[in-house]
């Protein structure tokens, strides 16, 4: 892979001591000059180039490696921090000092230089410090080090250890990722390529993957997470990208907060598809693989929806619908279930009181025939217009303390005895409503129960995660005048200013402002 990338010999660096291990045979095979293997040959539009590709720059020149978080056969995953020193370089210092000197003579400045005069004490009414005097030192030369540095995730592969087709796959991931721009898809910042390595710098997700929180999830949490997954997938499918490896481990929480948004990661297996044309290459993970992949009859982007169905199933019940791992393929019964898409809802579902709406969602995602299986858009629609509103209603009813549904969620030590009382009421009322989920009638609480125990509805004590759903946000979040003002200003800016703002928001470490 040492081909047309560069003549630079910066390659030997702290990270990099693998050149000795590299078999020379591959070096030769790559030396043919395969343009595809060189990232910078791919070019791109302005939007695509927001994720910058840099040749012959070692990542360690720009970033400090803080921590290794994963190690694979081809390379490692690190957490890196942007070097503060990156902002300052010798030539720029000289240049800026010179230029700002001459700028002071330009009369166009709206404020005169008063660096010698007394500095005004700041009040909102006071004029700002003059730009030019501020600018002399404020060029990127010095930066306060007290500020938290920007952190990113860095995935690296050693191209010397890879076959050309593997490199191509890795480049494929980069090219797909830089086309995707969505709040629920991990963002690509920069790509570095040197003789021996490729590094991709992405957003860092600190919250761990879905498996880390699966134990504490209730149905509301699952609905909110599912909505985000399906929205991200709908966006991808809309742009003709198929992820092909959706699983719990590839869905990350962006932050450690409880209400953290989720991000789809690992596009290593993703692929561009043409609508209606089947893909053949079998890939993915055993437990989320759709029957058509297993049967090798060719598959479409709909196999992503299958995987979403499986992921939702696992989140809700913490059991696997079909296979758990590859070994289960040997099990004839399990294999047959998968091939025929026989979904069963075991006792876990009863115990956890999972709604029939959730089951319906799963059944529609786990249809054997990809043509009758939901599209991503249909799935989002269902989550937003059926599932989440249903859970909202259910919560409302449980807040009024009448139904047995959702009561388990309100369990807390402080209101246990209250709960007993209410359980009495609900068992009484549920005999009338025959316990069906869909037959909610107006709550008929005896007023004295409410009055004597607790004036507040008990469910309020547990915050609903439904507030984080987009379906809910549509009712709550509205464009504000400040947003509109900002947008109107932006629309009138020149191309350069727009480009700068775009670059700025793109390269911002967004996790710091969440």
């Amino acid at each position, binding site marked *: 892979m040492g081909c047309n990338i560069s003549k630079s010999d910066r390659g030997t660096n702290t990270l990099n001591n693998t050149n000795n291990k590299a078999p020379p045979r591959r070096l030769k095979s790559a030396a043919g000059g395969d343009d595809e293997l060189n990232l910078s040959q791919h070019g791109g*539009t*302005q*939007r*695509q*180039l927001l994720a*910058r590709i840099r040749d012959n720059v070692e990542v360690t020149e720009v970033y400090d490696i803080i921590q290794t978080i994963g190690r694979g056969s081809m390379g490692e995953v690190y957490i890196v921090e942007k070097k503060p020193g*990156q*902002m300052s370089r010798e030539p*720029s210092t000289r*240049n*800026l000092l010179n*230029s700002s000197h001459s*700028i002071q003579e330009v009369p166009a400045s*709206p404020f005169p230089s008063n660096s010698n*005069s007394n500095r005004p004490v700041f009040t909102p*009414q006071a*004029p*700002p*410090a003059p*730009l030019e*005097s*501020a*600018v*002399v030192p*404020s060029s*990127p030369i010095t930066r*306060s080090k007290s500020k938290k540095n920007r952190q990113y995730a860095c995935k690296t592969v050693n191209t010397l250890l890879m076959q050309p087709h593997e490199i191509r796959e890795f480049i494929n991931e980069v090219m797909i990722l830089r086309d995707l*721009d*969505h*709040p629920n898809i991990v963002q690509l910042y920069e790509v570095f390529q040197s003789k021996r390595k490729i590094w991709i710098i992405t957003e860092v997700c600190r919250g761990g993957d879905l498996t880390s929180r699966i134990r504490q999830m209730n149905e509301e949490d699952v609905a909110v997470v599912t909505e985000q997954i399906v929205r*991200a997938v*709908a966006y991808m499918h*809309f742009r003709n990208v198929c992820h092909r490896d959706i699983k719990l481990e590839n869905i990350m929480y962006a932050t450690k907060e409880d209400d953290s*948004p989720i991000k789809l990661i690992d596009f290593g297996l993703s692929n561009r598809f043409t609508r209606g044309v089947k893909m053949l290459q079998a890939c993915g993970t055993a437990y989320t693989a759709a029957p058509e992949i297993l049967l090798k009859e060719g598959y479409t982007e709909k196999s992503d929806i299958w995987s979403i169905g499986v992921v939702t199933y696992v989140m809700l019940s913490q059991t696997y619908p079909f296979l758990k791992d590859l070994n289960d393929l040997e099990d004839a019964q399990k294999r047959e279930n998968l091939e025929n898409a026989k979904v069963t809802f075991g006792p876990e579902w009863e115990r956890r009181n999972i709604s029939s709406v959730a089951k319906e969602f799963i059944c529609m995602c786990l249809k054997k025939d990809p043509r009758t299986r939901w599209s991503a*858009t249909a799935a*989002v629609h269902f989550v937003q217009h059926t599932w989440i509103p249903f859970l909202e209603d259910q919560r409302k009813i449980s807040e009024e303390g009448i139904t047995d549904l959702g009561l388990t969620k309100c369990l807390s030590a402080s209101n246990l005895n209250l709960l007993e009382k209410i359980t009495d009421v609900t068992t009484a009322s549920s005999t009338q409503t025959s316990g069906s989920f869909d037959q909610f009638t107006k709550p008929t609480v005896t007023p004295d129960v409410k009055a004597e125990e607790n004036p507040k509805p008990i469910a309020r004590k547990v915050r609903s995660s439904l507030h*984080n759903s987009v379906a809910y*946000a549509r009712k709550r979040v*509205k464009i*504000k*005048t400040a*947003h509109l003002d*900002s*947008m109107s200003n*932006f*629309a009138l800016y*020149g*191309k*350069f200013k*727009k*480009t700068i*703002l*775009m*670059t*700025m*928001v793109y*390269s911002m470490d*967004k996790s710091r*402002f*969440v």
Partner: protein
Amino acid sequence: MQDLLYYDKYILSYTHLFSTNSTYTYSLQELAQLFSSIDINNEGTITVLELKEALKSMEADKHLDERTIEKLFKGIDVDQTGLIHWHDFLAAVIESQGLVTMDNLADAFNRIDTDGKGYISKEDLKKLLGTDYNEKLVEKMIKEADKKRNGQVNYDEFLRLMFDDPAKGYHSIFGLPKELIQGVIGKKKKKAKVSSSM
């Protein structure tokens, strides 16, 4: 050096005021939610129809007519694809969050000035634009900021472009009363000194 500290302080105190006096915070999560809720058909992008719909439901005294919204949309849709992506949207509303800070701008400058020359050249912009590059566009872009007319943009000119909007003056960042700014800008150096020290 001290000037720098002062300058940063101004921006900081300004953003501080901004975030306490109003309901806006630094929450990008909130912006992501706003973006997602405007995107009614869940395709992950905003179309002109969706923008119209969102502006209709806005609680405001003034309502924009269709043509204004279309113009607005075109202004935000920088690469003219007919879709506003997440980062287009973010760039357009970022000023309302007080996040156009020196720190973030320095980062953007360094990102555009790839090799640390200390200025942005036409070559840098060419790299930035990729296949969208054309010579006239780059000329125009440089002219936007190039006060010294030397064909490149240094950090000073860069900051001027960002903060020193002729239409709004410092009003946009410092929330100054407009009369004061116009007074300052209208006068010549010496007189302006007087007015600014008042």
